[in-house]
């Protein structure tokens, strides 16, 4: 386990740094004293158990929720993310876990929402072409971009949400479980995308429960547990180490299942 700040493959300036960020919802403390740094050209993976507070953290950074306490510095200045518009203006693009799409609008309208081309006379042709380009880049399988998002499959929606975030020219891009609903090909494309984005010098925060994917793209792996920092790892850390940090125990459902399977297989062979 490495120290929380300053370490890791720091390829650039710190884009984002959080100090002592906490968030309470009534009697529940969703986040307590979180510290986090993201540098330019760095992919930070945020991992943790269900309800660990990953999405809450992302929402705070996206201006959706306000932190109960703590400071956020972005590009060297302390910032107050009062609403999502402010975060977007700062250059923070987010793919939310719940996608946040408008079901009544079609795919093109969702991708360009808030950033339509030609505000006084929408340029539907240009937007449609650009939408197809983005979607094809992500290997999306969407029959028509003129259907309301309500009729799309889970993975198709997720692709639309990811495509949205590519429109901006952000400095930091946050992806909250971007591949959860994606097919194998689409997942590969998103991982490629993350690498491309990193290589362009952006900071990236990615949340995932898939340790393989995480290790494939992350430069640093930050673990949250029950709303608190629980260590920073490198992709070279072992699976066992990581999972122990996430679940808070070396003996856990995953290890038990692995053991049981191993036993069964031995039994089968015997």
């Amino acid at each position, binding site marked *: 386990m490495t120290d929380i700040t300053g370490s890791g493959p720091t390829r650039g300036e710190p884009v984002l740094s959080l100090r002592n960020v906490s968030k309470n919802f009534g009697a529940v403390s969703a986040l307590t004293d979180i510290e986090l740094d993201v540098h330019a050209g760095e992919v930070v993976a945020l991992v943790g158990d269900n309800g660990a507070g990953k999405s809450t953290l992302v929402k705070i950074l996206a201006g959706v929720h306000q932190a109960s306490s703590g400071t956020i510095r972005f590009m060297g200045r302390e910032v107050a993310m009062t609403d999502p518009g402010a975060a977007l203006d700062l250059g923070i693009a987010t793919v939310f876990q719940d996608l946040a799409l408008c079901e009544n609008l079609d795919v093109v309208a969702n991708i360009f929402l808030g950033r339509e081309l030609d505000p006084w006379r929408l340029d539907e042709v240009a937007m449609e072409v650009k939408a197809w380009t983005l979607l094809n880049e992500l290997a999306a399988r969407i*029959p028509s971009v003129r259907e309301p998002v309500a009729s799309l499959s889970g993975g198709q929606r997720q692709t639309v949400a990811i495509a949205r975030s590519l429109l901006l020219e952000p400095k930091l891009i946050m992806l909250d479980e971007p591949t959860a609903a994606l097919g194998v090909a689409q997942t590969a494309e998103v991982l490629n995308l993350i690498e491309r984005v990193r290589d362009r010098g952006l900071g990236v925060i990615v949340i995932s429960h898939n340790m393989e994917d995480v290790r494939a793209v992350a430069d640093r792996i930050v673990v949250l547990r029950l709303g608190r920092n629980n260590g920073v790892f490198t992709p070279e850390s072992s699976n066992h180490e990581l999972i122990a940090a996430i679940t808070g125990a070396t003996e856990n459902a995953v290890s038990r299942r692995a053991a049981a399977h191993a036993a069964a297989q031995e039994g089968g062979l015997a």
Partner: protein
Amino acid sequence: MSQNPNSVAGRSLDRADARLRQDEGLGGALRGFIDRVRSGDLGMLPVAVGLVLISVVFTSLNPVFVAPNNLVNLLFDCATVGIISLGIVCVLMVGEIDLSVGSMSGFASAMTGTLWVQQGWPLPGAILAALAVGALIGALYAVLFNRLGMPSFVATLSGLLAILGMQLYVLGAQGSINLPYDSPLVKFGQTLIMPDWFAYLVALIPGILIIANGLSAMRRRRAAGLSGGSLSLVVIKALVLTVALEVVVWYLNLGRGVPWMFGLFVLLVVGMNYALTRTQWGRSMTAVGGNREAARRAGINVRRIYASAFVLCSTFAALGGILSAARLASASQQAGTGDVNLNAIAAAVIGGTSLFGGRGSAYSALLGIIVIQAIASGLTLLNLSSSLRYMITGGVLAVAVIVDSLARRSRVSHGRA
């Protein structure tokens, strides 16, 4: 189809998916239409069918119903509440409501009457003042809604009462004020008719626009590697529409002709439709109505959108009120009371705008108010006691929307609600 860098495997970008039936040309359009009939995705067609249905029935009961001058009167009557309903469409689009449009229209007519006739302001000044007050009240609702989080139902219910009070106050003991007959305002509301040739000319515009826009869109889409759609379809659409409109104009010209006031209403509807469907603002309205939080996360200034909806609604209500006064040549305590509220909201809903936000169209105000006024007009041609009149109005209203309801139902059962 030209081979384009964007097209995939010889198919245009948006037709590349193997599961998609390739509806090209006229036949494809027809197949697409049948599909839409089946799945109930017909927009305003069902309500139009309902309208035709009730027209046939009323005509068979009393042929005067389709007498040109009766229809001219109908158009005059549609314009006033129709414009109010247009404002209602705005607030319904964002999933809110304005219960005070009736009072607002009454207050605007009272203001116009008082300022113009009693205080001697110039007419445009009085009208502008009334519209400004409308906008102001809308802005007030926006503050109550955005800043204090008051549900629009409650805020505008308070408004309904308070504005009615102001209307009574402004009119004072007088109760009602006559507007001069020979004033341009009253002429506009009662008699001003487009010259025949002008009406014929205006009726050409939609067709021309459809062809022009259709061709340019087709060219641009093809150039960008998207499917272009069928040229013949565009031409047929434009032709059918133009012929239909010219026939209507011809028929109305047999009577007094096309009222300018109705022209204004249609102009506002078309303008509003453009704003709602072809501008960023309209897109934001739809988004906020569909999913407020998603719109907010997309960086849309949600409060400003709500404010624009409330302000537009109240302003349209004020305009409708001024025109009602013009139509009646009077500004009175009764103006805006009674059924104005319910009719304005009902018109929008009957035309297909959802009460829950995110789904609607400016045309719903036009179509809905025509349905409502056609029923009212049809019933004035039958000698009925009040009790029967109410019962029949209720029944006919239900019938008029039943076609639409059935279509909608099939839409749900096809998984596209």
